[in-house]
Each structure stands twice: as structure tokens, then as C-alpha cells.
């Protein structure tokens, strides 16, 4: 009965939004670029390989994929750690505001402690709810909300130290 139910549920039925959110999470964790692409690809390879192990009662497909990605990030060699640098302000004129803003934020996130970075990546990269994060980290929802609040405070402080990123047009926000 259980197997029949598992066969009916395909966690990768609509892959595109899942790819974007997994990549968002991974990129916030280790930085935007080829390594994030490799981790995302490996996440989906493993998901395809172990698709039968997905249990919809335990959570959403995204949470399952993020769990795989987290384990891959934690198991990767430390040499893959990216140092994200914000380009000099003098060269900023060559870059579009969006790109500069993104780089500044990613850089600020990369300066956070691993646990805070993980929380930010789970909440704003993977777009998980506090409840889903709590399930993933085996914490209480309230504890996650408090930890997120603190992580945002640290991030704001980091951005303040680096200097305010260029103002982004509000109309382009998604």
C-alpha cells in the first residue's frame, strides 16, 4: 500500500522551480558560480537515483531536495569554499545596479557564520517557511524565527560595514 502511494508521487514532476530554489539555496551557502551549479546538478542526480525514498508524508519535494543539497555541501572538500568579493566601488559604473546589489548581498551573506548563512539560505534562497526550516534543522519554529531575526541583524550590520549597496529600483523586486 505504501509503495503504491510512493509510486504515484513524483517529487520531480515540475523541476524548473525546484532547480531555481535549490540553486538559490546552494549559491547563498557557497557562492554563485560553477561550484553551486555542480552541487545543484549532483542534488538532482541523487534525487533521481533515490526518488523511491521520497515520502510525501515527511515533507515537500523542495525540503527533500534541500536536505540532499545540505548534505552535499557539508560533505564537500573545504577547498571549494568560495571567497566572494565585492568589486571596487570605482568600477561599479561598469556593472548594472542589479548585479552590484546581488554581489553585495551575496558577499555580506558569505561573511556570516555558517549557521546564520544556512538559515538565510534556507529562508531566502530556498524560500522555505520557518516551519519547514524547523523540520529540516530539527528545531522549534519559534527558535528558527528568533535565529533568523538575529541572522538578519548580523547581515544588516555587515552590509553597514561594507557600505550601503546601490539603491535598487523597487519596481523590479519580485
Amino acid at each position, binding site marked *: 500500500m505504501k509503495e503504491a502511494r510512493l509510486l504515484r508521487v513524483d517529487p*520531480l514532476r515540475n523541476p524548473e522551480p525546484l*532547480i*531555481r530554489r535549490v540553486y538559490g539555496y546552494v*549559491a547563498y551557502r557557497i557562492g554563485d558560480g560553477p561550484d553551486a551549479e555542480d552541487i545543484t546538478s549532483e542534488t538532482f542526480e541523487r534525487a*533521481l537515483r533515490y*526518488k523511491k525514498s521520497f515520502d510525501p508524508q515527511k515533507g515537500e519535494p523542495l525540503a527533500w531536495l534541500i536536505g540532499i543539497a545540505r548534505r552535499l555541501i557539508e560533505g564537500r572538500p573545504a577547498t571549494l569554499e568560495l571567497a566572494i568579493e565585492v568589486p571596487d566601488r570605482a568600477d561599479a559604473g561598469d556593472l548594472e545596479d542589479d548585479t552590484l546589489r546581488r554581489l553585495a548581498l551575496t558577499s555580506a551573506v558569505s561573511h556570516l557564520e555558517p549557521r546564520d548563512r544556512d538559515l538565510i539560505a534556507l*529562508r531566502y534562497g530556498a524560500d522555505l517557511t520557518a516551519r519547514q526550516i524547523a523540520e529540516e534543522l530539527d528545531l522549534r519554529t519559534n527558535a528558527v524565527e528568533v535565529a533568523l531575526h538575529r541572522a538578519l541583524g548580523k547581515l544588516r550590520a555587515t552590509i553597514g560595514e561594507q557600505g550601503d549597496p546601490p539603491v*535598487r529600483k523597487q519596481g523590479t523586486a519580485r
Partner: protein
Amino acid sequence: MRHKRTNLETELRANRPEPSRELVHRLEGRVREGRRSRAGSFRVAFAGALAAGVLAALASVGGLGYAATATGDAVDQAKQAVRAHGVLVVHKSPSRDQYGPKAKKKKKAKKKAKGRRFARPPFTG
């Protein structure tokens, strides 16, 4: 304070790193391919199971037929053996004397005459 925090959260979501179009297409293709191969493997497995079932059915019928033929052959062979040599019955043998049916003994007729046991012997002179 609240407005500032909301802005930062919005910025974090809006500036979430996006995968390249090539990566998205490649992974979508990979997922579709995995789904197709899974469906294909199901078809192959179904065909294999069907073939195995048919073979098993045929083998069981064939086995029963073989067993029935073998039993018939054995019975025929036994019949032939009995017909060819016949059954040898030994009528006089030590074993038959010991275990065979006992021959009826002729009983001597006893003359039972009441009083004659004590009769006077015949006069002999």
C-alpha cells in the same frame, strides 16, 4: 526598523542567485530522461514478468504431462515383465512348509461308547 527589515528580506529574495539558463535546461532534460527511462524499465519489467509467467505455465503443464507419460510407461513395463516371465509359484519349498497354509490332518474317528471303556476284555479261552 520594521520597514528596513522588510526591505532587506525583499532584497534577499529579489537578489537570490539564479541558475544559468543552460543549467536549468540541462537538469530539466535530465529529469525528463530519468522519467522516460523509468517508464521504459517498467515496460521491460512488465514484458519480462509476462514472459516468465507464460514460461512457468507451459513448464508446469509440460512437467505434468511428462510425469503422466512416465507413470504410464512404468505401468506398461511392469505389465510386460509380468506377461513375459509369468509369476513363478513354488509349491514345495521349506518356506512354504513353514509359513504356507497348513495341510489338514485327518482326524481319526474316535469311538466313544459309553461304558465300553470299562468293559470286560473278550474271553480268550
